């Protein structure tokens, strides 16, 4: 499989979510990645991009979100970087708890983590929170 390294920076608006999704999906399609695996990566990534736009950057339209896509050694890595002050992902309420099951929001990080092999959060100097997802491709 070919290797790939691409980057997209979008203005901080959900109006740009489809562009970010297309960036991820079309690049992975050109490498022949399985459609179902692309969907898992895209669902996970759009959860984190929504999170970056709405929470990390607080909906501030003067900010940006950076999306970095890397494919190497049968491994897909997507990094989503906001310009926010960061958050503690361990304090998110359990979306599977009975009292949270009917809540409209609060399951994005859970879904993002469920569909990939690794999800971690750290900081990117000069920017803000960096969410990194890793998905290992079969074969």
């Amino acid at each position, binding site marked *: 499989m070919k290797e790939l390294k691409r980057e997209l920076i979008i203005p901080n608006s*959900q*109006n740009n*979510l*489809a562009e970010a*999704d297309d960036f991820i999906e079309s690049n992975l399609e050109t490498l022949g990645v399985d459609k*179902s695996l692309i*969907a898992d990566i*895209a*669902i996970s990534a*759009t*959860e984190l991009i*929504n999170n970056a736009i709405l929470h990390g950057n607080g909906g501030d339209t003067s900010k940006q979100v950076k999306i970095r896509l890397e494919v190497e050694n049968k491994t897909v890595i997507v990094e989503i970087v906001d310009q926010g002050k960061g958050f503690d992902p361990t304090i998110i309420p359990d*979306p*599977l708890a009975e009292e949270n*099951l*009917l*809540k*409209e*929001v609060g*399951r*994005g990080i*859970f*879904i993002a983590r*469920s569909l990939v092999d690794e999800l971690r959060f750290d900081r990117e100097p000069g920017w803000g929170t960096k969410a990194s997802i890793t998905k290992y491709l079969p074969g």
Partner: protein
Amino acid sequence: MKLNSRETGGVVILEPKGKIMGGPDATAMHEMLHELVAADKKRIIVDLGGVDWMNSTGLGILISSLTTMRNNNGDLKLANITEKIQSLLTITKLVTVFETFDSVDDAVGSFSTN
């Protein structure tokens, strides 16, 4: 995402197509579902056969709509669930919340037996 709707036997069938991921399309679907309640249309089927995938935004819209319908003595049911969406409903335990059907006809029929 594209969103069509039709009505049969007092049941409104919504047919979203594409991906439900957030942004203006998702907002349009959310608004349409709440307008249906305002128009006293409370028997809703969402036909998910044309939806490639959705993320938590899509699930949030369905939950919000389900709650609104049930609070107004109506109901919202799901039909033609794809494998990808079934998997999401399972991992989020929402499979225990929604009534799902293999076909729109089965979902429509379930309203008449209620």
